[in-house]
């Protein structure tokens, strides 16, 4: 075998994982095929659709253009981590209620980007939401209900904070 591989220690969704990975494997490859976390999707594998978005140290990152071996000592979060103890996160509930998922394929990527946005900016306006989501493509919704869902979640959080 003339390829390079190593045992990788990754911190995924709060859990330490050890996995054999090639130097050439992307984070998306390792998450999906190595760790069985198939929530992150492969829409284009070239960074042009955003379906593979995960969070690395809180930032939304394209996992298809990130080498897994560069991700040790990082806090990696995938869509599987949004719901806790089988309870949907407020963002996920807003997403469902608003009709922001149709086919759902882009949803994990959008959710991770939107979640990162709301953590950094808890009260964005619609323009700011659009700009933050400009790296995620959706072909089903025309984005209308996606923007509605993020707005609704931000509003809900504001109201609960009061």
């Amino acid at each position, binding site marked *: 075998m003339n390829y390079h591989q190593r045992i990788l220690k990754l911190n995924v969704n709060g859990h330490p994982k050890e996995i054999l990975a090639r130097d050439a494997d992307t984070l998306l490859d390792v998450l*999906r095929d190595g760790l069985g*976390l*198939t*929530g*992150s*999707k*492969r*829409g*284009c*594998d*070239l960074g*042009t*659709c955003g*379906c593979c978005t995960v969070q690395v140290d809180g930032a939304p990152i394209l996992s298809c253009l990130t080498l897994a071996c560069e991700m040790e000592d990082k806090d990696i979060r*995938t*869509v*599987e981590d*949004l*719901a806790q103890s089988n309870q*949907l996160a407020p963002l*996920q509930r807003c*997403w*469902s*209620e*608003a*009709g922001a*998922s*149709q*086919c*759902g*394929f*882009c*949803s*994990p990527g959008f*959710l991770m980007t939107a979640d990162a946005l709301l953590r950094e900016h808890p009260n964005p306006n619609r323009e700011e*939401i*659009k*700009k933050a*989501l*400009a*790296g*995620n*493509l*959706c*072909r*089903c*919704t*025309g*984005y*209308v*209900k*996606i*923007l509605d869902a993020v707005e609704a979640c931000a509003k809900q959080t504001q109201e609960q904070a009061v």
Partner: protein
Amino acid sequence: MSKFQSSVGTRIPLVDGPEKVTGSGVYIEDMKFPGMLYARMVRATLSHGNVQAVDFSAAEKMDGYIGGLAPGEPGTGNRFGVLPISEDETALPAPRSLYSGAIVAAVACENERQARAAALAVKVKYEDLPPILRPKDALKKTDDPLHDRTVGGTNIHKSVEQEFGDVDPAFAKAAKVVETECTFDGINHGFTEPIGCIAVPEPNGRLSVYSATQVPHYLHRALAKVLEVPMHRIRVYKPLVGGGFGGKSDPFPHEMVAALLARKTGRPIKIIFDRDEVFLNNHGRHPTQYKLKMAADAEGNFLALDSDSLIDGGAWGSFGVVTTYYNGVLAQGPYRMPAIRYRGRRVYTNKPACGAMRGHGAVNARFNLECAVDEIAESLDMDPFDIRAQNALPPNTTTRNHLRITSTGFLECLEKTRLASRWDEKFRKLPKGRGIGLGCGFYISGSALPIHRTRTPQSTVHVKIDMDGGVTIHSMAADIGQGSDTMLAQCVSEAMGVQMDRCRVFAKDTDTAPLDLGSYSSRVTFMAGNAALRAGEAILAKLKRACGQLTGHPTSEFIRGPKETYVLRSDSSVSVSYMDALTEALADNGALVAKGIYRAPKLGGSFKGSGAGLSPSYSCQAFVAEVEVDEETGFIQVEKVWAAHDCGMALNRTTVEGQIEGSVHMGLGQALSEQMLFTSGGQLQNPSLLDYKILSTVDTPEIEAILVESNDPEGPLGAKECGEGALAPVIPAVANAVYDAVGIRLTEVPMTPERVLKALEKQKKEMALASS
């Protein structure tokens, strides 16, 4: 509350929403099977050629290589295709390879890396053949047409000529005649989930094929044909599908390849396309050249329509025969048109095949028509809304070409859009560079005639209820994100008078679910929804009988009551709970089962092609777009789209709006930025989501969906289609808005900045000449 609370018109989240937002939903790429192999396609490096030899010798020596599939092997040359009248596809070239990037052979290896390496190591020898790349070349007679059954020794796949009424006399006496000639680039569906399938040979000799498909039934038929086995030896399973829009609505060569390789190797075969392969698979909107002539009298009444379309079908037939018809037969609705002539030709060329794409054939025709209507309106000094309202088809009528119109909310669409957009304050009144335009539309709720001439109902839905009180629904209606599973649950629960969350929908497996033709031509809500209602009503009848038995009151006197009860029509204090009624009904009977079917009524005339365009009901639309044109750069900025769509009845407001919003977004992409580009040698130049430009969040304007409900007499609870009709109107709305803004009529779609700038420059020159 003493009444049954209907769910119709409420907002219902998708029943599979939780799977989608948690990432736990299973799409084809997420699936794995023990012993599974990965197959990669070997693709043609030339636009047209006969495959002479395929050399696997280098691949065979590579790590992990298990097997390959070459032209000539059993099954690879068996013809299939979604339309029985044009089954011209084969899994592999037999021996003709028809476009650059076509599948020529395949390899299967233990893992994906090995498969990629092995595929690149396969050597193919071709006999070069001259490619046919331009539609006008495909019109010429040839010794060697691309397919067996073409028209008159040319590469014309299908030629349609229709005439209704007295067309020439109408033009002769018309006060106004307008001619438009427009060209349209090819468009790709651009769903975010790539195409893929897994073929799994079962130990008992059956074959299961899992595929991201809109049409499990057509796939099932094609597999049986290609593999030469009876259909019952094959099972098709549809997982969650990440969008289709007509790009997953054919049985495909790679599905046949997977099945043949599975049979050959005895192991599960997984094929997932890369994004560029999705583009090469295409089956998208046909590049089109469309000429249209329209006549009106001095009062603005439409007199005649004469149109001619030349559509570039690429390598295979796909749905193209239907597309050829739809380019003409749907063009005149929602208007009265006393005389219609249509000539349509679809040609084969050596490029990726075109097929059905959202709006199927009606989109490009609609652009021509709506721009022509605006021109006529302007020449008569009539408002675009007024002229359209004047010519609106009334309800309960038949068009000149035998389309039966039942419900039509067109006038209401016009009214609502006009008001919402504040049209009268803006039309021809906005400052130069800013404009507002109207575009209308008309579309089928499924084809009345099935493509296979059988007497099998087009949709069947099964319902089973057992002692746990849950409602199991089986259907092969393919949910591809439009929410058909949710619609089925809503229809059954509505009919039965129970909560929707009792329903569990199984619409994935041909072994267990009854036949449904699949998700295309916007048929599912109308047909499967009706079938679901009937199944629910049949169950209700059984429950009512049980109520009668329990209470001694007549069965027929029971109606659906509040909170899952059945009450006496005359005395709501006599009430039986669903569970009590169910327990009684199960006694001595066991599980309740019921079936609902739908078959479209017999419609239309008896002339050739009369089936095309027939539908049990039609949607209609009136859209307004407000734009700003940058006259220096040619960029069109769409500020907002108001989209009134007559959906008959909005069963689920959220999903109906979602379909309209998504359709508008897709239409805007075709209007502004999407185009499939080809090199001079016929290779697809931009098979990536970077170079094929789908609008992002920051490129998409505000879209206001306006629901109009004309209450269709035959639609389930009054509903009709909302999945496709809402795409076409936005494109001419933008074009007409551009005319309002800067006075140019665009005739090339997409209306890219460069094309707009050229038109503006031409206008400047013409104005300079005129004033000199």
